[in-house]
Each structure stands twice: as C-alpha cells, then as structure tokens.
C-alpha cells in the first residue's frame, strides 16, 4: 500500500473495480473510517447494478433480421454502388413554388423527413403535371438536360428509361430547395398520366426504406440514400410506383457512373 492522499477519482475507480491493486487497501481503510464516503460508494455501485438490471438483457434478445451481419453487409455494399444513381432522379418542382425550400430536414427522424418530403413532392406534382404548356423547363431531347441538372444539384442526375412502365421522358426542371437546388424529372404515360422524380441533397448520409404517402389521387414514395433524398410521385397506384422506384434503383446499379 502507498500513502498518497486519496482522491475522489480513486473512490470512483474503486466502485468501478478499476483501482490499481496497490491502492485497494488504502481506499478500504479510508472508507472504513468515513461512513459518508462509504455510503456514496455503495450508492454508486447500486446505481451500476440498477443500470445493468434495466438494460443488460437487451444484449440477450434475438438480433433483429435487419441487423444480422449478412444483411448489413449486403446493405453496405449495395449503397456504395448506388451513390451516383440516386442523384439520377432529380426532379422538378415548381420553380416559382418555394415550398421545397422549407426545411424538411429539421424533422426529428428520417421517417418524418421522408413523409414531409413526400407530401411536398405530391404538392409539387399536382402543381406541375397540370401545366400543359410549361410542365418542364428543359425538354428531354435537349442534350444539356442531365448535365445541367447534375451540375446544379451537385451530383450526377440521371433519367432512367421507364419505357417498361409505359412512361416517356418529358424533361426536367430545377426547383429551389433548402439544401440547394432540387432536380425534377417528368415522365408522361400513354394515358397522359405523369410521373415525377425529384432529387435533392439531404443533410445526413441516411438510408431508409421506401416510405409511401398518398394524398387524394396522388401517391409518392420517398427514400434517402447516400446524402440524397428522392421522391417518385404519380397517380396513387402503389404497386406501379413501387416498380418505378425499384427501376430507378436497378438502373443505377448496373451503370453506376454512366451519364
């Protein structure tokens, strides 16, 4: 035992079982003659036990599917390939309409952010699809459409081929957004229905599953990927929009960097 004066830190270390062995006797004899300090140490230990009792069992729960290592690995490698793609989707929202400029990203969690973004996209969709003459700023046949949107959004923006869903690319538009410009791309179907894809920068590198929102005749799927927020909006047919959103994903996976 050494005779160095006792410190508060040593009492904590003693309570945590972290005290060097050559100091244990000194601390114990101090505690024996200082009941107040002994009571404090006992309470700290009781607190530790209570914390372990309260949450310790979480480590024994079965691990949820999404946290199994195979699934996490798959997710991590898939994301890397998707980085570029996401931006592809950018869309258009009414240039004059500033509503995308509201700060959706201050929402408490990704679910709320996704919902807010989807609602905004539905609103924009409603506004622009009825625009017969100027639904878009730059037509699909103008070569600078995608380079222009990509440059303004700050990530490669792509327009996947949605011919299999009966959709033809009309063109794109740039909208104001709280994190910088939002790209909007518009498609038109054989029945005259329109589908829009928007892409904008998200504040964090979150990833989420597709979140579905519907409002009247329109629906939207929103997701976050690699620092970007995407929304596909169109007629409220969940299955079709789901297929479209997946096509956007897939298109990106096979050609990550092609523009």
């Amino acid at each position, binding site marked *: 035992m050494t005779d160095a004066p006792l410190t508060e*830190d040593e009492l904590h270390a003693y309570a945590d079982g972290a005290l060097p062995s050559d100091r244990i006797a000194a601390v114990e004899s101090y505690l024996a003659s200082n009941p107040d300090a002994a009571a404090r140490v006992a309470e700290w230990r009781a607190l530790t036990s*209570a*914390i372990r009792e309260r949450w310790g069992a*979480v480590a024994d729960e079965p691990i949820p599917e999404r946290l199994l*290592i195979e699934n996490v690995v798959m997710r991590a490698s898939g994301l890397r390939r998707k980085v570029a793609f996401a931006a592809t989707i950018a869309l258009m929202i009414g240039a004059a309409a500033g509503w995308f400029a509201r700060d959706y990203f201050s929402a*408490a969690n*990704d679910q709320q952010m996704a919902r807010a973004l989807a609602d905004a996209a539905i609103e924009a969709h409603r506004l622009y699809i009825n625009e017969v003459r100027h639904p878009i700023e730059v037509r699909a046949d103008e070569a600078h459409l995608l380079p222009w949107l990509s440059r303004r959004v700050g990530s490669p923006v792509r327009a996947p081929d949605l011919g299999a869903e009966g959709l033809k690319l009309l063109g794109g538009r740039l909208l104001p957004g709280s994190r910088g410009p939002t790209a909007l791309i518009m498609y038109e179907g054989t029945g005259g229905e329109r589908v829009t894809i928007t892409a904008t920068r998200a504040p*964090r590198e979150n990833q989420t599953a597709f979140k579905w929102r519907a409002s009247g005749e329109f629906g939207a799927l929103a997701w976050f990927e690699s620092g970007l927020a995407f929304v596909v909006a169109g007629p409220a047919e969940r299955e079709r929009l789901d297929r479209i959103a997946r096509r956007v994903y897939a298109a990106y996976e096979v050609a990550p960097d092609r523009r």
Partner: protein
Amino acid sequence: MTAVRRGLEPLIPALRRFARALSRDAETADDLVQDTLVRALRAEHLFHGGDLRTWLFTILLNLDRNRRRGLSRRPTLAVIEDVDPAGPPASDGTGRDIARGLALLPAEQREVLLLVTLEGMSYREAADVQGVPIGTVMSRLSRARSTLRAHIEGERPQLRSVP
C-alpha cells in the same frame, strides 16, 4: 469475410444494449445500430487495427449526436416517451427512476456513465470513445453520479439497495 466483418458480429448485442439505454426507444436504438454498422463497413478500409469496439461506439455516439441535433431544432418533436416495452414493469420503481434520471443528464455525462457501467469500459476506453482526456471522463462520471444520487433521493427518500 474481412477482419472487420468478423469482428463486428460479436459486438452487435452490446451495441444494441448501449443504444437502447442511450435513446430509450427500441426502434430508434436499432436504427442507430444499423447506421453504425453500415457506416463501419463502408469505411472499413479506413480502419487500420486498433480497438474495433471503441471505434464502433465512437461512430454510434456521433450518429446519436446528429440525431439529437435534429431533434433539438424541432422542440415540439423532442419529447421522448419512455415506451420501451422491454423495461421492467412500472410497479418496480427502480428501472423507471434510472431511465428518467439518465434522461436528466447532459448527453456527455449519460454517455460516459453508460460506457463505464453498462458496457464495463475502462476509463481509458471511454476517453477514447468520446475523444477526450481521462480527466474529462472522470469529472463527467462524477457529476453524473452526484446528479443521479440527488435525483433518486428526491424521488425515493430511502435508496433501496439493489441486490
């Protein structure tokens, strides 16, 4: 499978436990763990030896801070109900008091206390996770314990000893 992948798997239960105590919401906690694992895998080329556990807890704390920053911008959404169904029944006062008491602590103090008590980390490891000197860990730990002591005494005049 790389060394990082092999090393991650056995750490998942502890990450879940820590995240649950930190966020007090099972869904939020697993979201944090998932984001932590994905991030670690995507950055595994940046991990050159060292302590994998410390590194993962550091990532998790950073993500949690981002999450809380998001919450604080929206005060109306910041109310976190204690709805964890895995907790002990309310009739047993201890668990609830602990959870409520922890919620009163500044985040850095809550983090240190949980790293040391729940996760059994050494002060050195806790300091590495938080990226602060050991002295800072000690003072955070000390303040956390005296705040909780006062809180528990306030709620229950006689502190029951926990077996």
